[in-house]
């Protein structure tokens, strides 16, 4: 997030797009609802599904799945034609405006209506509301990123925010809500194929030299493979060994048949996890690890706040922490890693990580600190890009709308969109073993609009078969107007209903994120 969670509560307008906040980030959901109910903030929801936030929204734009770029361009078209853009800000702090203007020109509200199904008047109203408020904040989540055009979607939101001068101000900004507790941290720590910690490029010689010195070893300048490329590489036989630390690819990756094939083909697979996961079943070695309550360390939350976790109980049996295991293997491979405790790793990390350099365990004992925090007397950073962007000027990207990869047709007449539900988390390894959450949500349901249910003669609670070009699964139907007509919704928490047997593995070319939010399906009574 460019800004902080607590700042959201003081925004005048909150634009929530592609985020089912009350289910996926419930405590931020509460912040948004308080802003609306108690501080008269105006909420604009842009989402195909009738998520709970729509109840609090001043405006709800129900776009067809995958048409986000068109809608955002439509908003900018209105802003420009009505002269609401932040002219001084655009002139002083951005570049690429002319190109943007040119592309946006043809996205009139009427034209966008034909693409997205959102009435032109609603686009006008939303544009005015967002642009004319003083503090307008955008928040988004996987509904924006899990598309073939995910990067375009994100850039379009950045265009919108910069056009209105809403980046670099208190209670404004562009705020991606991170799904997993430490996604932010895993990225910051360099668990990406092209960067070391704090996004220092492996291809950059200075960065590499720095790490070579710190780690006393020669490093490869060649960016590595992303998760989906690794799977493809394994299937082709280029990747021979894979070490998986706490991921459950066999449920979370797109196109599970393909993942299975890839895992089977590996010469050697190591999986370390707290439970024997679907992925672990294919492993040559499975290692038991401590969970969050059984170890010390830090997580970085979605607003860049580094916070402590603390060991409260012992791990079961012989389970070890993930870092102890890594260090043990490194030792065996003649690269000694001697750390007495998690804090020792932290101390080493912050020497090579400028944005984390000023954060110590001592400083975050009672309250977390938000990076960038370059020195130990720096208070941390509540919101980014205050006076300048990281790259200097903010760059507009002129982006054309591209439809989703797979659209409904005769054979597969409906659209499938996937996501999470409040009561479960990711692949369900933890929440499905927790009593309360399982009691609230014991099984996977396919959400179907009443009109579609009638059309396909499906009634509440009936088992249905959902089929795509890649596979079929069966699950119980629930009939609800939450799903728009022509679109069904499924979650991916249940291994019995492996939704990712269905999803389209086509990737966003830049971010390499699969298009989980749109594919074409057929449903029938099972």
């Amino acid at each position, binding site marked *: 997030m460019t800004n902080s969670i607590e700042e959201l509560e003081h925004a005048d307008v909150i634009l929530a797009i592609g985020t089912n906040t009350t289910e996926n980030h419930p405590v931020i959901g509460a912040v948004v609802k308080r802003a609306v109910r108690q501080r008269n903030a105006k909420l604009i929801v842009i989402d195909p599904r009738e998520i709970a936030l729509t109840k609090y929204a001043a405006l709800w734009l129900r776009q067809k799945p995958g048409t986000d770029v068109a809608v955002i361009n439509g908003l900018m078209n209105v802003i420009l034609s009505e002269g609401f853009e932040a002219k001084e800000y655009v002139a002083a702090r951005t570049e690429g405006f002319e190109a943007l203007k040119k592309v946006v020109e043809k996205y009139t509200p009427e034209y966008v209506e034909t693409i997205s199904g959102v009435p032109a008047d609603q686009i006008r109203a939303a544009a005015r509301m967002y642009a004319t408020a003083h503090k307008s904040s955008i928040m988004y989540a996987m509904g924006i990123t899990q598309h073939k055009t995910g990067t375009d979607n994100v850039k379009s939101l950045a265009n919108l925010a910069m056009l209105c001068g809403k980046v670099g101000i208190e209670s404004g900004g562009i705020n991606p809500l991170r799904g997993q507790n430490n996604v932010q941290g895993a990225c910051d720590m360099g668990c990406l194929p092209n960067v070391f910690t704090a996004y220092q490029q492996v291809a950059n010689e200075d960065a590499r030299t720095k790490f070579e010195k710190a780690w006393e070893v020669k490093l490869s300048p060649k960016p590595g493979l992303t998760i989906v490329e690794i799977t493809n590489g394994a299937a082709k036989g280029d990747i*021979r060994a894979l070490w998986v630390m706490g991921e459950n690819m066999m449920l979370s990756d797109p196109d599970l048949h393909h993942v299975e094939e890839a895992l089977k083909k590996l010469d050697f697979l190591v999986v370390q996890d707290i439970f024997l996961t679907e992925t672990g079943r294919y492993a040559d*070695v499975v290692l038991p690890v401590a969970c969050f309550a059984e170890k010390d360390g830090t997580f970085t939350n979605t607003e860049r706040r580094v916070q402590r976790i603390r060991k409260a109980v012992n791990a079961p049996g012989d389970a070890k922490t993930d870092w102890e295991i890594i260090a043990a293997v490194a030792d065996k491979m003649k690269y000694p890693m001697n750390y007495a405790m998690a804090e020792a790793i932290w101390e080493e990390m912050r020497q090579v990580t400028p944005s984390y350099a000023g954060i110590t365990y001592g400083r975050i004992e009672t309250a977390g600190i938000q990076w960038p925090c370059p020195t130990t007397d720096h208070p941390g950073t509540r919101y980014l890009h205050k006076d300048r962007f990281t790259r200097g000027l903010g760059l507009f990207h002129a982006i054309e709308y591209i439809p989703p990869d797979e659209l409904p047709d005769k054979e597969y007449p409906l659209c499938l969109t996937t996501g999470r539900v409040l009561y479960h988390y990711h692949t369900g390894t933890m929440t499905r073993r927790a009593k309360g959450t399982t009691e609230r949500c014991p099984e996977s349901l396919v959400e179907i609009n009443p009109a579609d249910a009638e059309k396909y003669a499906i009634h509440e609670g009936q088992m249905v078969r959902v089929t795509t070009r890649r596979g079929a699964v069966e699950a119980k139907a629930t009939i609800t107007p939450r799903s728009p007509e022509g679109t069904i919704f499924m979650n991916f928490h249940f291994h019995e209903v492996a939704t990712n047997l269905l999803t389209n593995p086509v990737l966003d070319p830049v971010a390499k994120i699969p298009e989980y939010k749109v594919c074409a399906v057929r449903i029938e009574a099972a």
Partner: protein
Amino acid sequence: MEKKIPVTIDGRELQALPGQTILDVAKENGIYIPTLCYHPLTTLVGACRVCVVEVEGARNLVASCAMPVSPGMIVRTDTEKVLEARRMIVELIWASGDHNCLMCESNGMCELQDLIYQMKIEKPRFEIQSPGYPVETTNTMIMRDLNKCVLCGRCIRACNEVQVNEVLDFQERGSRMKVGPAFDSDYSDSSCVFCGECVEACPTGAIINTQGRFAGRPWEIEKVRTTCTYCGVGCQLDLNIHDGKVVKVTTNRDYGTPNGGSLCIKGRFANDFIDHPDRLKTPLVRDKNGDLQEATWDDAISLIAKKLASIKKKHGSDSIAGLASARCTNEENYLFQKFMRAVIGTNNVDHCARL
């Protein structure tokens, strides 16, 4: 500088800020006024009147939690009249419920119990008449025993104003007034999302966390502050430990942002996976028949080191890849990518941020 307002409480001349209530000023200056319906994050209602004080010139006692200070106000918190009024209120509350502390989960952290103790009330002067409500045990997370409810309304305000879930309200007004979801339904049949804000707000044992029931008295429990393991909000919470086990989760408003004491169902109630019998306890290595068999750490680590080294030698560093985890700590992720890069010699390291 905002203009200070002079007030006198119990003979002490104090400076207050505009907008502060008598209670705020008293608290700030270490003057004790008991409260019950007061919840710092929600609307001030002054309903229970446990916090009454005498204000010079006012005809009746005033509820200090809801009364803003005015210049020159003279307040007394400890007169006979005040003490008697409070005592009467507390005795009435006691008599109108089933406050059997012996079996109450809140024994030792109950605000009603504390008030009775402080006021040295041995027995209420009124006959005890419990309303005789059935105890709600239809879910495994939140138990409600409205016979212990003091009708303070804190749960209602917490649900509506803090979490804005808009589930709870006063039902059936009048002598049988009670709190709960619409149509007097159980939580599990209502729109309740089990955030547990009402559990945290309830001053008595009327709404409790079922998971911690019979799992240790408050004074036997050790609290360890940590960060929720689920979503990216990073809520701060206290794991409650008894006998080496996590028995439940509580929160503390003083931890401040990002969650200010609020949680969702996952952070508050979905931690029992920690001692689930399915937890992996020993390393497993696949044997000749293709079955996973228990192994020692030494064997498992040696095997991994040997295999990785030989594959690296035969097929090169880039034939090996690693997936780190958005679930692991920063320290572990740092070490993992360092391992892949420095020990294996590849940049094939990613995690599922994208998924």
